[in-house]
């Protein structure tokens, strides 16, 4: 009877230790490192005077998190020059499909300004709880030169994209996850969802 009682105590204490370890890993927040901005083939876009020139519809970079995505949101700040682009958006990869981004628009050209060379500032917040995370805890972020409901499929021969970006910073903050985000997160654990 005593051994049985000890066994139950050890298992209960183990579960409490795990809850404490995982719970404490959700608490950290602050600025996180970002990779270089690249095209979808992994070639970095040119940098001149801190300005990165994006010449394709898709521009990818990684944010190196130090914690799981659950209960976190990503805050991106950057400056950009849109030139002749009509729409610019950014999204975080959601599942194993390589183009599973739901971009948030941060720039939409008005009817009067067809070519804007002025420096704009953007500040966006993206919930992370339902996003996919790589083994090294990084997340994939993609800039898209297209309307939010029209993901651009790359065609280098006809691509006329041209815009510039600088001072890109990423921070993570606590974000209370929704019920569906919890469901997606638990499902991703059970299904062993991986970045393909």
């Amino acid at each position, binding site marked *: 009877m005593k051994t049985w009682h*000890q066994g139950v105590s050890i298992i209960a204490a*183990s579960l409490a*230790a795990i809850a404490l*370890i995982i719970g404490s*890993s959700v608490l950290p927040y602050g600025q996180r490192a970002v990779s270089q901005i690249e095209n979808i083939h992994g070639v970095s876009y040119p940098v001149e005077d801190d300005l990165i020139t994006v010449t394709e519809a898709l521009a990818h970079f990684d944010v190196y998190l130090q914690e799981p995505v659950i209960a976190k949101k990503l805050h991106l700040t950057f400056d950009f020059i849109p030139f002749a682009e009509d729409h610019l958006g950014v999204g975080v990869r959601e599942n194993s499909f390589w183009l599973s981004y739901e971009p948030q628009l941060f720039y939409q050209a008005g009817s009067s300004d067809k070519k804007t060379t002025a420096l704009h500032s953007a500040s966006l917040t993206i919930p992370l709880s339902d996003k996919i995370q*790589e083994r090294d*805890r990084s997340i994939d972020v993609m800039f898209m030169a297209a309307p939010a409901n029209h993901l651009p499929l790359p065609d280098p021969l006809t691509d006329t994209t041209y815009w510039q970006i600088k001072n890109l910073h990423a921070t993570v903050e606590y974000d209370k996850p929704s019920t569906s985000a919890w469901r997606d997160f638990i499902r991703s654990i059970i299904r*062993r969802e991986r970045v393909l």
Partner: protein
Amino acid sequence: MNITYQLWFISLTLIVACGLLTALQWFHPALVSREIISATLGVAIGSALLSLILTKK
């Protein structure tokens, strides 16, 4: 409850936790880092060794 028994209890608890954390990492590699699993195992082994030393004294 003496200190030796408490150290054994902590050691066993952390070894079980280590096994469960490893299983969790297999399901979702980003959920638990290897460093945390290694640190947990280190504390478990340290606790077991200390308990052994105290038992022999």
